[in-house]
């Protein structure tokens, strides 16, 4: 694996394609921007790394080397790659317990993550955090949180700092913060409170919902009054977009616009990416859920 300690950020110059119409409800193939071979390989490598890392996590768990909870990300790699590969080192990301692939995309070395899972001092958090608490100051990975929703205010705070630097300290700062969370979190108070605050102060943040239709083992349809999460953005005064979260090119296109909006200071965006989790909520769940037909 080349360059484990970083990732290529700069996309080489390419001809300007025609601008995509802003925020289609779901992007279609016609609107996709072309990518170069290098970018394509970068995205593929990142997604393959995420998938193989997660498969290895599951193997290690079964062998008894990793304990506690391990939450796999198989199936949602496009969301992580599509968004995080557009970020700079100084941008912050926040995730919940399903944070390993986000960490990999952000540039945290796979060795540090696996060491952390094994509980070693060479882990990214010296073995003190574990699977659900991955942090990296160098890569601005602000966590890794065990309770759902509690990372969203932290991401809001990081975005607040970015705005503070711009407006109060008068520095040139266009850092954005990304908060990744699931559909179950979208019924939690902290989600709504942060949507309100982010839109109120036009914070440079993107809220990314990874909707796999299951909040742990409860169907989203049984827990949510209006399951179309992207609609909740406009209720707070920000755009809400729905995208196929299993197609990395579509996700990347939407991400580009959302992150661009945040960088320009136009405020937050809510992006709902529908992406199924192929291996369930965590390693403790069977791969074939017993009664997933509602």
């Amino acid at each position, binding site marked *: 694996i080349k360059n484990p300690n970083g990732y290529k950020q700069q996309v080489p110059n390419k001809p300007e394609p025609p601008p995509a119409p802003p925020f289609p409800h779901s992007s279609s193939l016609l609107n996709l921007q072309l990518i170069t071979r290098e970018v394509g390989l970068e995205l593929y490598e990142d997604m393959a790394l995420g998938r193989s890392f997660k498969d290895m996590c599951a193997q290690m768990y079964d062998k008894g080397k990793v304990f506690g909870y391990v939450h796999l990300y198989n199936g949602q790699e496009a969301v992580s790659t599509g968004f995080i590969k557009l970020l700079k080192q100084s941008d912050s990301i926040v995730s919940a317990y399903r944070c390993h692939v986000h960490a990999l995309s952000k540039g945290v070395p796979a060795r540090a993550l696996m060491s952390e899972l094994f509980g070693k001092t060479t882990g990214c958090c010296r073995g003190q955090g574990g699977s659900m608490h991955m942090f990296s100051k160098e890569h601005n990975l602000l966590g890794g949180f065990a309770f759902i929703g509690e990372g969203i205010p*932290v991401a*809001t705070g990081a975005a607040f700092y970015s705005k*503070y630097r711009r*407006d109060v300290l008068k520095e040139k700062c266009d850092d954005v913060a990304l908060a990744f969370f699931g559909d179950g979190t979208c019924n939690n108070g902290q989600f709504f409170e942060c949507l*309100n605050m982010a839109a109120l102060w036009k914070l440079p943040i993107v809220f990314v919902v990874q909707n796999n239709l299951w909040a742990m083992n409860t169907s989203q349809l049984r827990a949510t009054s209006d399951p179309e999460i992207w609609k909740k953005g406009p209720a707070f005064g920000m755009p809400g977009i729905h995208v196929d979260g299993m197609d990395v090119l579509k996700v990347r296109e939407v991400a580009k616009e959302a992150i661009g909006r945040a960088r320009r200071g136009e405020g937050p965006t809510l992006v709902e990416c529908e992406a199924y989790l192929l291996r369930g909520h965590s390693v403790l769940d069977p791969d074939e859920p017993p009664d997933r037909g509602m």
Partner: protein
Amino acid sequence: MATVQGLATTMTTLPETFFSSPSSRSIQFPAVVAGRRHHVAQSQRRITVVGLRSDGGVSFSNQGAGHRGLHLIPTAVASTAEASASSATAKPGHELLLFEALREGLEEEMDRDPLVCVMGEDVGHYGGSYKVTKGLANKFGDLRVLDTPIAENSFTGMGIGAAMTGLRPIVEGMNMGFLLLAFNQISNNCGMLHYTSGGQFTIPIVIRGPGGVGRQLGAEHSQRLESYFQSVPGLQMVACSTSYNAKGLMKAAIRSENPVILFEHVLLYNLKERIPDEEYICCLEEAEMVRPGEHITILTYSRMRYHVMQAAKTLVNKGYDPEVIDIRSLKPFDLYTIGNSVKKTHRVLIVEECMRTGGIGASLRAAIMENFWDYLDTPIECLSSQDVPTPYAGTLEDWTVVQPPQIVAAVEKLCCM
């Protein structure tokens, strides 16, 4: 170390004069015994108990109605600030109410460091419900003194995220009780994130607000959150009680790299005191010696300090010499100051406004017993609020909180053991 048998033997070999006699001879024990001095006048029959302590010292104490007669001090005013660390009267300063002192400390720190900012409800344009941030929004702008929506969990989390990335926020809870809604963030992120991140992130946040029992504010606005937060690993807690230490602790908390919770009290905001003109800070981990004494150590904090000092006036009139310490640092305890005091007086009374069950007093009692058991002559007494929701009616509310007569009675009981 004397054994029980040794104690018995020693007692039988003591001369008769050490025991009270029916005669009206008055005996004084001016001798320094193991570092203490007792001036005891005996004018009537009383039982003297001679005890041999484990460190070899001999103690004498009277069981009876207490010391009386010879030792009435005509001008019994429990000395407060002069002898203590808050030697504000030594220098010419300026008089400030406690909330103004907090504001002054806050303003000085915001001037000093542009990364210091405030967030909370009503702190900006309104100037704060208790006027602690009055005028600061005009001076520093709306983003530095941020009016938040009523979403404690989220804006506390926002403060934590900002602190992780580089800011030094001060989060104000309009009432400490509202921070119950922020418990998730305070416990998981504020307290533990420094650890779970393997030390990568520090959270230099200050969470402050008024708590405690006010004047008939009702049960939910009269909560004492120090007992709930004390178990959260990674938090530091301090309680201010005077204008001097309010400003000092505010400044120290802002400069600290640790998450600090600063407990203020609703009823203490209008206390006036003269504080120095020049810049100063108070040590976050230090307790304050309010009144040095010899007979008993009274440990207290926040509003109960004033109830204790009021009781101290009565006690001094009665001939007792209490040592009053404002512990200030609720987590960690300043066991150095407290320990030195216990070694001197051998009796401890804790007076707090926290609930009896699981309160600060309970932890302090355990800590003192664990560390200074051999120096104690009596069990540690702890006066706390009753384990009930604070009633609205004023008389009932007064009964749930420790009052000066109870403190006097407790001291008398302990000093006669």
